[in-house]
């Protein structure tokens, strides 16, 4: 029998699938506890206002209302990043966007809770509002949203003299583009249930991607020891980054449970989910690049202005992310990044699939497409001339291990016949091309510590069952399957033998959460480490019984046997019995800590990852020049996954990314009017349905990353990135207009066509960036391999 993998690499049905399709899965809102109360939040009707007075007496007087809370009941500030502790569960002095929570009630049913919310009287004093980047930056606008300025974060880094590299280059180009904000739109609304027991312990069930961070925040805000708090992440009905923050309703449900002694549930309405947001930042960008006449990049300057909304959230990280991954996609010898995030009176922005990188990806890929045309080099070739090398370090000190970008590019270009077809299709149709890279997990934790990022405990029982405990939460991406598949592969058992317990802070060791595409890589490595330790214990006992060397043993098909003589062996359960007889409980733990590879500069913590995934896409568009409507019939996408632990799940992630990207490219936008979200509903916030989904040709490229579990990298976010600019480039190839603004709506397309008809520049998009004084550039020494260029 061979050493071939038996489970890893197979398209097997994931363990939670049957529960989902049969309706058995219990989401947070499905939980019903005896004597449970219903909580509701009163939210600000003003984008920016001071709270003068709150009178809750009329609400408290309603029979059936058991508690009413205001900001004074939860005075401790919090925030997901240690540097941005600027949120309150219920606003105390000021509200900063329409939807900012101000008060809360718990009542015996939802009608009473609604009525109580209506009876709370709040006296506001309206303040001048800031609804755009320009307004946030305007002088004399009155009281800033936080502190003394609306500038939340401004950064400026330079790696090598970019001015010299660009102005001395044979060819240079500058582009200014805008990417409108949009939101995650998970099917499941956020929900949380809290219970405070007679034993003085608090339990919170929540639809969250980050139970560990919620655990920490509860301890801080409730001023309770974390040891008395238990957070259980319920199966997520979609997250996409929208459930990876600490939310007011979680803290409030917990506090209401403490105050009333009864379980409390808060489920957000769809409208409230739009207010909870933490979605894609609107970003205005300027990119300037120098090229040799052969199309090789000599240097790049990149500026981004992020419209952050009312609070910090992940914003400091988002800001750095708009500058971090330019260099992992292309070999850029000198690089300058300036970024600024501004507070505005809108729901706070944060991480959405691709966190901070789809916007610059759009800027860069459209920019390169234009440069390719100017240089007379085809867009595929231009990319191939600037590829990063495997096993290299970027100019901003990011370590690249495996890199399958070339293979991805060649695959989609060939399959779609891009070069032959891009401008040779019937009228209105064309192909566009773009590429990208993404992290397989952030190399640093959200709060500074030296502990592992992911931990797994494994215990085997006499019947041959394997219990696997891990803090990771499956948000639909399939992390449960990955954990089970890796453990089953190493131990040679079947997927059904693995009993998973996940995302329960009482029971499971830490996993930092389902964000930054980190779970397969990090929890997968932890699972592998734990399983290998258990296997070693079993082999030791089995070797004694079989009178052979443990190294000669193999585990497969629920057996432990001699590699050379497979009939010479025992069942997996017999091996467990032998080991347990010898040494008691057969258990082990494994953990994963990413390598410390951040560069020697401030801000270097955002961008490093133990490995990067790569993608390339070709998108076909069908534009109706009479109406400006753009449809996408077909997408070809290749993704460097390292190794597909379950190809079906990877393809699912790729297809989901394509679909989400098309929504962002063509219709989704979080826009505001009179200070309010224009359409906080699933009907009017336009997101594509299954009918708009194109035919998607997915190709997986395997590069077997040296550090990934079985060589695996990420799939959840990267494949979204190239699709958006590929749409824009396809529109150009189809009808000759440049829409340098996302989303590409029909009225914008028509406007550009009208410009074209008049012989003017056939373009719609921003023309300038605001005058803004970035901080002095921090000049960072480049890694040695770059200092010659």
């Amino acid at each position: 029998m061979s050493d071939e993998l038996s489970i890893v690499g197979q398209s097997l049905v994931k363990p939670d699938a049957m529960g989902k399709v049969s309706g058995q899965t219990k989401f947070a809102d499905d939980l019903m506890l005896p004597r449970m109360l219903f909580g509701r939040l009163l939210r600000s009707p003003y984008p920016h206002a001071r709270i003068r007075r709150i009178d809750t007496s009329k609400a408290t007087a309603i029979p059936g209302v058991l508690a009413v809370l205001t900001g004074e009941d939860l005075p401790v500030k919090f925030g997901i990043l240690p540097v941005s502790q600027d949120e309150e569960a219920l606003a105390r002095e000021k509200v900063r966007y329409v939807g900012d929570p101000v008060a809360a009630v718990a009542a015996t049913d939802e009608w009473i809770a609604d009525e109580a919310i209506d009876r709370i009287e709040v006296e506001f004093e309206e303040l001048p509002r800031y609804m755009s980047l320009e307004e946030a930056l305007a002088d004399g606008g009155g009281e800033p949203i936080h502190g003394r300025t609306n500038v939340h974060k401004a950064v400026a880094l330079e790696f090598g003299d970019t001015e010299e590299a660009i102005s001395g280059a044979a060819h240079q180009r500058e582009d200014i583009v805008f990417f409108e904000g949009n939101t995650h739109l998970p099917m499941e609304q956020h929900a949380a249930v809290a219970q405070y027991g007679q034993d003085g312990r608090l339990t919170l069930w929540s639809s969250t991607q980050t139970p560990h961070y919620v655990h920490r925040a509860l301890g801080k805000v409730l001023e309770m020891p974390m040891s008395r708090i238990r957070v259980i992440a319920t199966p997520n009905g979609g997250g996409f980054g929208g459930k990876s923050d600490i939310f007011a309703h979680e803290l409030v449900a917990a506090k209401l449970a403490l105050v009333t002694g009864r379980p409390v549930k808060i489920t957000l309405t769809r409208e409230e989910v739009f207010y909870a947001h933490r979605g894609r930042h609107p970003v205005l960008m300027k990119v300037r690049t120098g090229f040799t006449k052969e199309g090789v990049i000599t240097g790049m300057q990149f500026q981004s202005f992020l419209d952050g909304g009312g609070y910090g959230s992940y914003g400091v990280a988002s800001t750095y992310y708009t500058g971090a991954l330019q260099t992992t996609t292309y070999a850029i010898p000198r690089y300058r990044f300036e970024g600024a995030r501004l507070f505005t009176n809108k729901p706070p922005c944060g991480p959405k699939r691709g966190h901070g990188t789809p916007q610059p990806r759009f800027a860069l890929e459209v920019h390169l497409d234009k440069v390719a045309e100017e240089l007379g080099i085809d867009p595929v070739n231009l990319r191939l001339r600037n590829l990063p090398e495997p096993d290299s370090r970027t100019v901003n000190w990011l370590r690249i291990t495996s890199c399958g970008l070339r293979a991805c590019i060649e695959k989609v270009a060939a399959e779609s016949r891009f070069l032959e077809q891009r401008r040779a299709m019937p009228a209105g149709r064309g192909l566009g091309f773009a590429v990208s890279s993404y992290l397989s997990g952030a190399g640093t934790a959200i709060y500074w510590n030296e502990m592992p990022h992911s931990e797994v405990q494994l215990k085997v029982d006499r019947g041959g069952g394997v219990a696997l405990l891990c803090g990771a939460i499956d948000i639909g991406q399939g992390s449960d399957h990955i954990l089970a598949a890796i453990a089953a592969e190493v131990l040679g058992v079947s997927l059904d033998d693995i009993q998973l317990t996940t995302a329960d802070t009482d029971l499971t060791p830490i996993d930092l959460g389902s964000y930054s595409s980190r779970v397969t890589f990090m929890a997968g490595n932890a699972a592998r480490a734990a399983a290998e330790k258990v296997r070693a214990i079993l082999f030791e006992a089995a070797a004694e019984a079989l009178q052979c060397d443990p190294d000669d043993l193999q585990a497969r098909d629920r057996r432990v046997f001699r590699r050379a003589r497979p009939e010479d062996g025992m069942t997996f359960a017999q091996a467990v019995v032998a080991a347990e007889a010898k040494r008691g409980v057969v258990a082990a733990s494994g953990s994963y800590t990413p390598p410390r590879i951040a560069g020697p500069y401030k801000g270097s913590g955002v961008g490093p990852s133990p490995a990067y995934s790569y993608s390339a896409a070709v998108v076909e568009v069908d534009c109706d020049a009479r109406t400006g409507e753009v449809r996408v019939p077909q997408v070809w996408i290749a993704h460097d996954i390292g190794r597909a632990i379950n190809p079906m799940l990877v393809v699912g992630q790729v297809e989901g990314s394509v679909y989400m990207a098309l929504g962002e490219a063509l219709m989704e936008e979080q826009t505001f009017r009179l200070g309010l979200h224009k359409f906080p509903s699933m009907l009017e916030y336009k997101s594509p349905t299954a009918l708009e989904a194109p035919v998607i040709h997915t190709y997986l490229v395997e590069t077997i990353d040296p550090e990934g579990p079985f060589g695996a990298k990420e799939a959840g976010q990267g494949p979204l990135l190239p699709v958006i600019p590929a749409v824009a480039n396809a529109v150009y190839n189809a009808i000759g207009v440049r829409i340098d603004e996302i989303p590409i709506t029909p009225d914008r397309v028509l406007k550009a066509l009208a410009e074209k008809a008049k012989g003017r520049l056939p373009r719609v998009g921003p023309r300038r960036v605001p005058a803004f004084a970035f901080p002095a550039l921090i000049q960072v020494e480049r890694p040695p391999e770059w200092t010659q260029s």
Partner: protein
Amino acid sequence: MDPILVLRLPRLRYVQARTVEEAAAIVGSDGGRAMLIAGGTDLLPNLKRRQFDVATLVSLRGIPGWDAITGDPQAGMSLSAGATLDQVARHPAVLSGYRALAQAAGLVSTPQIRYMGTLGGNLMVDPRCNYYNQTFAWRKAVGFCLKKDGDICLVARSSPRCWAVSSSDTAPVAVAFAASVVLQGMAGTRRVRAAELYRDDGIDYTTRKRDEVITSVEFPAARTTTSAYWKLRRRGSFDFPIVGAAVVIWWEDGVVRDARGALSAVGSHPVDISSYLSSLRGVHPDERLIAELAAAADKPARPLDNTDLSHYWRKRMTRVFIERALRDAAGLDPQAGLLTAQLKS
């Protein structure tokens, strides 16, 4: 208690009427606080947003024969108000003689809504506006508007009237076919031409009296008729029209005897454009004539900034969609028209 239904209906009395008379009597006598409910697909979401103050819902679904469809294109057809949109969209006689009606019904939203939603309810869809189809809390934050709880129009601030958008897909088809709507109230039964069912006002949008139940819609004989409905919306399912163009052509000896048309979603009522089509009479239209007429027939369309996408684009799209509907009804490739929506840049 059902999970996820966090946006609650108000507490209501629900009455299942056994006859039309009984339904009319309840809505006619409840001091204006009772409403008819058919499929509920328009009404219930609106009630969750507190767009009406209602104490009683009177359901029509239990009335015997409520979903009947009778007749044929030779003699004319009668469709009960309770016929579901799905029934209408698939009915062979409707498909053959009144294609635009089948198209319009089939283009309403999603399969689920077409299984529940009825023709009568579709004719009576509450005019829509994205300052109005919002939750109570949202409307309160924006300061309410004329249509409910407020005193100004937020779209046209100096306007004394409401410009909410007539958003029914079948209403313009009924108008274009010159169908009759049969209404039964406490005082008896009357029939009106479909166009007369509506008023050009976003609030007071119908001439139907409080106690009247629409019992059926009668489509005249359609022996030599072709018709088409073209609907503009962002997504191919789910979305209300942002422009709808219905066109009916009556042919005689290879030339047009008469042509009528009406638009959805460009005003507070279905906008009749038949007068713009009169020069089709007596000719077999070619694509130039169609383009000319369509370019002029968008005149009465007045989209405002209160539904999806920009109103100037919707205005420009109107003629493209009239052209498509006309070409379709005249047997030309609908999408190969001569007009573009061309925006001034």
